[in-house]
């Protein structure tokens, strides 16, 4: 029986449409424009916001967010755990609203990662910044971000005999969804993808090797972009313009390298069951799985860790096009086109909440008929080393 507590809901959403913004647009501009439009979407106004959430894109952390926007919030939360920050923040907004500390919470994200030519995936350790114990033990080896995820895929293939063909299913399903989303098609065009149409498993297997065993079509893009989510109390949600999307479960966890640890297990093995238990639903009931697709392995590991299937059986689970929105099986994966084919400005977690909300409102370009339950599971940091996995379970009335 699904959790019937109706304390807080996503009532306003906006995804910044462009993935290449040009030199006169800043990350903060993207955050502000997205905030304005998400509030409009809800039928709320600038002055209604009493709780703000920020992952620090502006650079001044918690001192900047209210200042730049011109808010006077009574709840300020600057949780920054990489790409999953927004799932953590949504959980905190739910709790703040349930405790009566706030009525209208605003989460925003903006990034110009593409325009600044940040070599996110292939830049490797810089040897810059203040030395830390972790950087001193990891910088000398030339570990790129992509190689960090590739190590997880390598071990998964060794331990469970998962195949490249199985991993490719994730790229193929996600691309199908991207081809149906005009903003994703424009993104792939603007970022000069070789092709913007559907891809086959063979296309994935023959794409360029980046960090063995991860190939180009298993890696997310680097784009600009951002968005905003407005989360409101039950009283406020009664009078907003769109159908409320209720938060009914949440889980938060981090994981880090451990002597003797299993690298194929993400922090989702801790946060996922907590979220499902609180929501009172089983993974098999979930219509829409928005799972952070930095790379194919991230999705596969998290599907297993959230108990969509047993650990090690993710390869068989995703086979046969199961994750496509029109497969007739649950769950549909990343129906906006994902980080693989729609956008990835560095911290994709907010887009998981946005598309999950669109599906439960009936507004997706790859709409699953009568979608009632969704999960948004973010992943931040690096899967192969220290990372966060936050899960939010969402339900419509």
């Amino acid at each position, binding site marked *: 029986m699904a959790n019937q507590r109706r304390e807080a809901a996503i009532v306003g959403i906006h995804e910044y449409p462009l993935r290449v913004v040009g030199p006169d647009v800043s990350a903060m501009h993207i955050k502000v424009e997205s905030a304005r439009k998400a509030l409009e979407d809800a039928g709320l106004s600038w002055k209604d916001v009493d709780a703000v959430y920020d992952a620090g894109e502006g650079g001044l952390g918690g001192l900047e967010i209210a200042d730049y926007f011109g808010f006077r919030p009574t709840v300020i939360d600057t949780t920054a755990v990489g790409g999953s920050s927004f799932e953590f923040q949504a959980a905190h907004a739910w709790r703040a609203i349930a405790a009566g500390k706030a009525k209208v919470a605003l989460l925003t994200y903006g990034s110009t990662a593409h325009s600044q030519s940040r*070599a996110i995936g*292939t*830049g*490797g*350790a*810089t*040897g810059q910044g203040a*030395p*830390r*114990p*972790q*950087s*001193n*033990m*990891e*910088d*000398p*080896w*030339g*570990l*790129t971000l*992509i*190689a*960090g995820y*590739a*190590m*997880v895929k*390598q*071990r998964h293939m*060794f*331990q469970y005999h998962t195949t490249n063909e199985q991993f490719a299913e994730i790229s193929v399903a996600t691309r199908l969804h991207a081809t149906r989303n005009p903003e994703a098609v424009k993104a792939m065009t603007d970022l000069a993808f070789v092709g913007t149409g559907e891809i086959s498993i063979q296309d994935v297997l023959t794409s360029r*090797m*980046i*960090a*063995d*065993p*991860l190939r180009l079509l298993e890696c997310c893009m680097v784009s600009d972009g951002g968005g905003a989510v407005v989360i409101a109390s039950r009283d406020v949600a009664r009078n907003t313009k769109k159908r409320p999307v209720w938060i009914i479960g949440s889980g938060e966890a981090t994981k880090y*390298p*451990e*002597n*003797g*640890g299993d*690298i194929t297990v993400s922090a989702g093995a801790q946060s996922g069951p907590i979220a499902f238990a609180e929501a009172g639903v089983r993974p098999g009931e979930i219509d829409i799985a928005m799972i952070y697709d930095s790379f194919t392995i991230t999705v596969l590991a998290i599907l297993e860790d959230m108990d969509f299937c047993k650990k090690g059986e993710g390869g068989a689970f995703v086979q046969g096009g199961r994750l496509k929105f029109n497969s007739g099986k649950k769950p549909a994966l990343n129906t906006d086109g994902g980080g693989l084919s729609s956008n990835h400005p560095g911290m994709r977690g907010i887009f998981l909440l946005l598309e999950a909300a669109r599906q439960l409102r009936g507004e997706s370009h790859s709409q699953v008929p009568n979608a009632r339950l969704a999960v948004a599971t973010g992943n931040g940091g690096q899967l*192969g080393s220290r990372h966060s996995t936050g899960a939010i379970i969402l339900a419509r009335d």
Partner: protein
Amino acid sequence: MTTQRVPRPQPRFPEPDTEPFWKATKDHKLTYQKCNDCNTVVFYPRRHCTKCGSANLAWHTSKGLGAVYTFSVVVQNRNPSFRDLGAYAVGYVDLDEGFRIMTNVVGVKNPSTDVKCGMRVKVKWEDQPGGEISLPLFEPA
């Protein structure tokens, strides 16, 4: 791995947790810590036991033998220290004493086909410019 022109990113000091580890590498000693109270192996170096919180840790020297836990072969790295290396294997090695270290697996013809999870390896030191530290790489045992 010896033909690179730009040196690799080096550990930097002062950094009190890892400084003893890196000092020992000058003498080609691969060191790790163990908790005197609960016997837990602690690595990367710290000043407390990650299992019980104790500050009562002791340094030990590894025999430098272990197995590849996992790895990736990096084909594309835009960092100038690694850009011109060609494909190289970066991964984790589990030492027989119970700690896991990030490193490079070297001494094979083709890292994509010749390095395997579970493969036995031994430490191979690569002295760094300046002579103050040496990097523990691993090669087939």
